[in-house]
């Protein structure tokens, strides 16, 4: 027995492959959407992984530093270091703002990292080019997603920084690229605004008679100096000594320092559960709709392909072809179409995923699930078409 499905495909291979490609693009879009969702969740995880911390110490009763603003004194880390089980404690600041270079203006998350050496919590864990920051001011390490190159001079608030290193996949939970600068510069950037604002603020202070007393020279200067300092950071990142449980150390810090401490699982819950939850649900819903639409279109295409062969099917039935043979021909064609479509879809998704502005993560689990979904949909769609084919009356072949 020859393969009717094979012969039919061979006969119209151009149309078949073309249909497969079209189907594949649709499947690729659906796979990409799943990748967008996974990318969002991964952004959150990358943020936590790259900070290199096991505990996050933030302002009491806030969900900071990512989900809610949090402010701590920058000398709080000293007392945290004294808590048993703490190996490293480092200040860190986060501020999402515009970073300018000569040609462009990029929205980035500016991270202020405490001075120290590579391995300090908050420092980028690995680089793709250049070096880590060595000077205490005016150097920056940027993520390549920001589009800066080594040696570029970028402007953050009032200062210029030289890009000395590049990283990859260091992004905020919203997908903004990170730019790492020394902590003191970041504290100033978070607090001090442009020169005009600073001058206005000084003028207002000097017009205030409480601060500008004639009998107390030096008072005004002291007040202005204290106003220009920013002693706050957004969080303290903590690494533990081996052998200490994070929950134990976290509750020690919370009890004695009267701050709020989150462990890694809790931080993940906050990020994924609160920060990106709405966007994730949005994309998830869209993904479901897209999958349903894709399934409907696949079914429609296969059904139409079969209907186009109704005359041949009637003749085949008349000359004595078994229903089973006809059904298997239709199902084989549907599955073949599904396989081609899936292959095209996976390839297309892999090729265009890197061009998306935010991270698209295609995981093998989704690919396999997608494969089985395509197979199942093709089989179900072919069942509908088979039902239509089997209901064809061979008598219709005899006209009149």
């Amino acid at each position, binding site marked *: 027995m020859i393969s009717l499905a094979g012969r039919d495909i*061979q006969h119209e291979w151009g149309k078949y492959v073309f249909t497969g490609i079209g189907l594949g693009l649709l499947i690729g879009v659906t796979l990409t959407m799943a990748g967008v969702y996974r990318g969002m969740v991964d952004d959150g995880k990358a943020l936590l992984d790259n900070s290199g911390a096991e505990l996050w110490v933030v302002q009491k009763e806030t969900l900071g530093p990512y989900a809610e603003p949090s402010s701590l004194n920058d000398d709080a880390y000293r007392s945290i270091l004294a808590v048993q089980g703490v190996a490293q404690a480092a200040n860190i600041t986060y501020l999402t703002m515009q970073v300018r270079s000569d040609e462009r203006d990029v929205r980035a998350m500016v991270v202020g990292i405490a001075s120290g050496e590579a391995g300090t919590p908050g420092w980028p864990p690995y680089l793709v080019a250049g070096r880590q920051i060595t000077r205490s001011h005016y150097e920056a390490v940027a993520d390549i997603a920001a589009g800066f190159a080594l040696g570029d001079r970028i402007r953050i608030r009032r200062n210029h920084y030289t890009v000395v290193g590049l990283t990859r996949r260091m992004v905020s939970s919203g997908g903004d690229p990170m730019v790492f600068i020394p902590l003191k510069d970041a504290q100033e950037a978070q607090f001090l605004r442009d020169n005009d604002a600073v001058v206005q603020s000084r003028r207002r202070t000097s017009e205030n008679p409480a601060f500008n007393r004639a009998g107390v020279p030096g008072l005004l200067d002291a007040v202005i100096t204290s106003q220009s300092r920013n002693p706050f950071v957004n969080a303290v990142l903590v690494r533990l000594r081996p052998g200490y449980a994070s929950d134990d150390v976290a509750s020690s810090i919370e009890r004695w320092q009267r701050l709020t401490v989150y462990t890694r699982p809790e931080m993940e819950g906050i990020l994924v559960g609160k920060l990106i939850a709405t966007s994730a649900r949005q994309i998830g819903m869209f993904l479901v709709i897209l999958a349903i639409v894709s399934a409907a279109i696949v079914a429609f295409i296969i059904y139409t392909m079969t209907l186009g062969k109704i005359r041949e099917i009637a003749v085949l039935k008349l000359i004595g072809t078994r229903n089973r043979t006809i059904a298997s021909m239709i199902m084989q064609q549907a599955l073949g179409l599904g396989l081609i479509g899936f292959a095209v879809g996976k390839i297309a998704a892999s090729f265009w995923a890197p061009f998306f502005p935010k991270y698209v993560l295609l995981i093998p689990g989704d690919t396999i699930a997608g494969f089985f979904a395509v197979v199942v949909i093709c089989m179900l769609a072919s069942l509908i078409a088979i039902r239509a084919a089997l209901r064809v009356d061979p008598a219709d072949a005899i006209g009149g």
Partner: protein
Amino acid sequence: MKGLPFKGRTMALVAVLLALLGLFAFVALRSGPLAPVAVTVTTVTSRSVAPAVFGIGTVESRYRYRVGPTAIGRVTRLLVDVGDRVVAGQLLGEMDPVDLDERIRALDAAYQRTDAAVREAELRRSFAQTQAERYEQLLAVRSTSEEIVATRQQERQVADVALLATRAERARAGDERAALLAQRRNLRLVAPAAGLVSARDVDPGTTVAAGQTVVEIVDPTSLWLSVRFDQSSARGLQSGLSTRILLRSRRGEPLPGRVARVEPRADAVTEETMAKVAFTSALDPLPPLGELAEVTVSLPATANAPVIPNAAVQRVDGQSGLWTIVRGDLRFTPVTLGASDLDGNVQVRSGISVGDRIVVYSAKALSARSRITVVDRIPGVAP
């Protein structure tokens, strides 16, 4: 003859399907989690590094004189303005004497009066002396009574004392007058040393409090930088080390300098060590006070030791170390780090040796199970 189009059709279909399969396999293996991680590798060499300490400083004058009155008063006149050069002892301005001049004149008159009183007392004393001597002579010849002689001697003693009293009065009047004169002199604002007027905070007619600065004078030849260094990277900072100074306004021209003094007191709040760095070459024109400068202090070069780029240092399980490639396999090697320079080169005290191959850059975080592929440059990084 007729077979060819049929076969051609099959061949075309087979070709397309094979291409598809090939692309699929390519995509599966080269992208996504199955793909190997691109890394760049370098071989460890031994050399010395030139450590340096980096800080930000502001231009200051070594000597800053704030000239002002010692008592509350009103400024009558100022003879200098910002930018004027002055010499030591030059009159800068004057405070309002108010009634001081009149009081001095009154004390002058009082002095003269006391002077006159002294002269009168002297005359009386000399007369009393003469009288006492005459009557002593007369007593010797028994021409007078002893009572009269005693009276005359007593008058002489009284006159002596009266003279002393008036002289003391006169001295007191003179001292009071000198005191007011000193005060009067104090109302003259005088330059304590040669220099440049850097600030004039009030204008004539303003009332100023005691201790308030009216005119500030700096010594322009004694400019230096007050520099702050991060304490954690200030190891080895001491006076005498040579420095490189980059003024904000002169970015392209580094200036030579020298650490003049490391301040014994650091800033505990900002965790910075402070030092004073002097310019060792002449500056023309002078930078304005308060201008920022980037200061790099050179420390003596270290001995040769294995050197690695600081981008290669990773932290795994609480230890600092490097990913080394041993017989093609990836392995994490803990190291202890030594001196480093500002270009990112770090010496390794222990853990690896010269000739080891280490991973510098990687496209993803590495683990012991990662598959790697060595490239010249991580994809996505512009040359």
